[in-house]
């Protein structure tokens, strides 16, 4: 295992200690941090490893949230609903991937973007099942007090993050990861050496959806109420990309750090510029792309981070 991957696992282990210092706000932030890291790490499988510009994260986050939410609302225990949300997202994504990943570049980006729209409309229209635009109420899992709940959901999200990180590291060291790297570099050549690119890309797309879907399920249980415009928000698709761009595409440790840095920025903006927070976010994105094309790693060139760790 590479040093960067070990650092990543250590970093995640450190986060687990957060409840020791916990007040409700820290825990909430910690839970979102884990959720963002899950999204960024998952996106990295298809966007960073295989090089396909996917904008589908929000689609699978919403899908998972609704699978989990609906099952929980019908009385299924959390321990079953969350895995089903993950597996369901994996299957849907893998199947769709087989068709969508034949597209490249802009066309793939658009198709993945429209998945959000299609899923949202489907959920909107399946009123009997999902409550449609009115949203879906999810019963409290176990009401043992505000702090206990917050801690519980933090660890739940953290657990999903840990599994995601282990998955991503395993992929990066496996034949699958090697194959995805081949696809990213030269898909024609990858086909020619006997690599089943459709299968590999579909699995990658499925994996990128699986834990995002599970996180969606946890999110639904955590917030007790979801509606289509909340969970199928295109920002959930763009944020992981920005995180990955901050941290440097392809590196699991990089994108995780990118997720945390992004969350930090977002918190500051939210608190101070509530009215214009999405505009400030836009400015951040523009500045990042124009001046730090390789994310934080570009800073090393400025010698400010001369002795910083190689992320």
């Amino acid at each position: 295992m590479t040093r960067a991957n070990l650092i990543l696992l250590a970093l995640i282990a450190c986060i687990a200690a957060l409840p020791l210092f916990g007040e409700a706000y820290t825990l909430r932030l910690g839970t979102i941090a884990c959720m963002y890291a899950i999204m960024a790490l998952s996106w990295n499988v298809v966007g960073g490893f295989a090089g396909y510009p996917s904008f589908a994260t929000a689609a699978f986050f919403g899908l998972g949230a609704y699978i989990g939410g609906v099952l929980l609302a019908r009385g299924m225990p959390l321990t079953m609903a969350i895995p089903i949300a993950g597996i369901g997202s994996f299957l849907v994504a893998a199947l769709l991937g087989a068709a969508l990943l034949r597209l490249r570049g802009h066309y793939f980006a658009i198709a993945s973007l429209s998945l959000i729209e299609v899923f949202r409309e489907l959920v909107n229209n399946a009123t009997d099942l999902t409550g449609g635009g009115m949203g879906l109420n999810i019963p409290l899992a176990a009401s043992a007090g505000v702090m206990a709940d917050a801690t519980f959901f933090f660890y739940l999200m953290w657990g999903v993050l840990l599994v995601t990180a282990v998955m991503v590291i395993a992929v990066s060291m496996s034949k699958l990861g090697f194959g995805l790297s081949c696809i990213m570099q030269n898909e024609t050549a990858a086909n020619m050496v006997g690599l089943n690119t459709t299968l590999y890309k579909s699995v990658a797309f499925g994996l990128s959806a699986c834990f995002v879907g599970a996180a969606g399920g946890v999110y639904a249980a955590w917030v007790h109420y979801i509606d289509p415009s909340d969970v199928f928000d295109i920002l959930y698709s763009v944020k992981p990309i920005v995180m990955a761009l901050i941290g440097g595409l392809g590196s699991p440790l990089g994108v995780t750090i990118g997720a945390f840095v992004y969350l930090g920025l977002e918190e500051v903006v939210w608190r101070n510029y509530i009215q214009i927070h999405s505009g400030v976010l836009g400015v951040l994105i523009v500045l990042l792309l124009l001046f730090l094309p390789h994310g934080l790693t570009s800073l090393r060139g400025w010698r400010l981070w001369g002795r910083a760790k190689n992320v």
Partner: protein
Amino acid sequence: MSEILHLQSVSRRFGGLQALRDVSLTVNKGEVIGLIGPNGAGKTTLVNVVTGVTPATAGTVKFDGQDITRVKTYRSARLGLSRTFQIVQPFAQFSALDNVAAAALFSQPGEGLKAAREEARRHLAFVGLEAQSGQQAATLTLAMRKRLELAKALAMRPKLLFLDEVNAGLNSAEVERATELIHQLAADGITIVMIEHLMKVVLNVCSRIVVLHNGQLIADGQPRDVMTNPAVIEAYLGQQYAQRIGAHG
């Protein structure tokens, strides 16, 4: 001799352009065939049709007795059909070693990465790139990338090997070296179909020559017969060239 590849009335269209027209061709085990013709005659298209990159619009392709007309590229690669590209197609960020390892890894299901790297080392040695095994493919010279391409094709344990202009862009010494490699491969029993512009190499290596012109097969036979075939001279070699061969040969 038993046949390994059989094309029956193969055609390929690109929109209005008929790139291949009713091509029938048989390749026998152990042969080294030279595929020649002017630029744009459809040579590379022929290779693309056989390897499933751009499937035939009509006709059938059989490989080792199996119909592979509609088979996907990666499958035909696993069956033992491998090729090099005219414009080299390396995994640019990988080391030379991993380039070849990828070929070994994915063409043989069940192979592990470690074993694939071991095998890759052997093939790199064979083409003379041991010293560059750790070097990033993008930084290799053109001649080295051509040889890397060959090593990749070999790592797939081919039964039939298509070589698409492996000598293009190489200087005389490098051409000589590549020719030697091809001789060695043929001696190892690999069937080879090579697209080549350098007639010197074709005549030196090939046991049979096939000529394409405007997507049609216009000649197929012994090198000396083909070189004196009036249709071939008209379409490809040109009168002056034929005179030179006459004068020298």
